[in-house]
């Protein structure tokens, strides 16, 4: 004979929902409030610069070769000391990523010899036109750091001869 227990069980259920009413909601008010992404999040690509403002990308197109979705298109041109974009001989004069094709696998990041391309934390990639899905270099490259000058720079001859920097622990 159980008389009280069934009623208590029902009341416990009701008590649980009532208690939850006074819990803090877990909702994130998205456009106003954004949660930081994880450190290894793979978002939109960013083309990095050195501290002096020169672009890290040397236009080698290894990223395009590594891309399994064939999303990256690179066209490179010659650097001169009068008009220098990046260290070494060549730079990427055209750099386009088709965000409709990109699968955010990060292989481009792995393939890059100069660590120029990095998958960043930007994930708001909506567009209303297929043509807008192709992100040109101007959208991908990061702004010039405070210590550097914008490209193209006029540099002294014989300083920036090495396109791949010497890395401490490659």
């Amino acid at each position: 004979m159980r008389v009280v227990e069934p009623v208590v069980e029902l009341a416990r259920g009701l008590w649980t929902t009532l208690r939850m009413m006074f819990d803090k909601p877990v909702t994130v008010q998205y456009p106003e409030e954004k949660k930081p992404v994880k450190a290894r999040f793979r978002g939109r690509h960013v083309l990095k610069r050195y501290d002096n403002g020169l672009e890290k990308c040397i236009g080698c197109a290894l990223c395009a070769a590594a891309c399994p979705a064939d999303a990256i298109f690179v066209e490179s041109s010659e650097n001169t000391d009068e008009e220098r974009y990046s260290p070494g001989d060549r730079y990427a004069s055209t750099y386009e990523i088709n965000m409709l094709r990109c699968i955010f696998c990060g292989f481009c990041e792995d393939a890059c010899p100069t660590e120029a391309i990095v998958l960043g934390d930007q994930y708001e990639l909506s567009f209303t036109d297929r043509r807008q899905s192709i992100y040109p270099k101007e959208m991908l490259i990061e702004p010039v750091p405070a210590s550097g000058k914008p490209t193209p720079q006029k540099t002294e001859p014989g300083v920036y001869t090495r396109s791949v920097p010497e890395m401490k622990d490659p």
Partner: protein
Amino acid sequence: MNFLLVVEWLVKGFVWALVLLGGFAYLTLFERKVLARMQSRIGPNRAGPWGILQPIADAVKLIFKEELTPANADKLIFTLAPVITVVPAIIITAVVPWGPSLDLFGYHLNLYIADINVGVLYIMSIASIAVYGIVLSGWSSNNKYAMMGGLRSTAQMISYEIALGLSFVSAILLAGSMRMLDIVAAQGGYWFHIIPKWFVVLQPVGTAIFLIATLAEVNRAPFDMPEAEQELTAGYHTEYSGMKFALLFMAEYTKMIAISAIGATLFFGGFNGPFVDRFPWLGPVYIFVKIIILLFGMIWVRATFPRIRYDRLMAFGWKVLLPLSLALVFITAVGIILAQQVNSRLIAVIPLASLLVAGVAVAMIDRTLRRKDYARR
């Protein structure tokens, strides 16, 4: 019958209909907010501050939606069914008094629309008409899901109407009248200066049966069998869209308000409350607060309990609620006779014996549910 009286009726009826329809709109918002909070969400908060314009946005959306009529539907009944569903939901509360008489600018105003001496009977009969709208909408859609939903709804509403009616009977017996004003008047005053003489104190089990049966009457969770989404897509309103759907939706929520108003009047003292005899305008405030609390209870139950199976719903209605409410009618009658003939303190027999019977019922349900062969079925 003078002209002023007609104007008064018109104004009161209009105001009450507006209160119900506005209440319906904001009840949907209230429900979504409360449900959201119980599920650790925030709920609608984009349209206006705290989402207070959400009902307007919903209404505009529904009005501009395309209205489809299935090719093989019975067009006349298909169009008529939402109307048949809405009208009883709105007129059912005509007999519910929402305050005592008020002297306003030298004009004597009665705060109720109709004062019929068989008010409770009126409520029961109108509640039965509401079933027609649902079964007709289910049938005329010419859709198997809608048909099933309509049939289930009819069976369920008819089954639970008996328990509902019998729970009304205990309130009628205690008040000695079917007139709503008499029932409210019988609940005025206090025992020991603290406990209000509401019928929920005298007949707690009857109130519980009323609350359970109303959930089934208005097709609310956990008895929302007619519109069990997982089984019947949407039940009787599967084929409805646009404003016709809005009407069916409106009927459901207006019925919730109506049934809460009736419950507040029959068992929770109506417009009675402290100081209401000195300040008559407190009456509407009290009944409003009671309605809100009962509506919150309905939403709370929806957030808590899962839908019960159809055969068990029927078994619960016929094998538990019906005998239990019959026993309560008997106990109430005996208690009243004892109080009248022997000693007025013997009125305490009613709640005590009712709780005893309810305890026996709970124990029997529990034993049945624990039986292995029943659980497997």
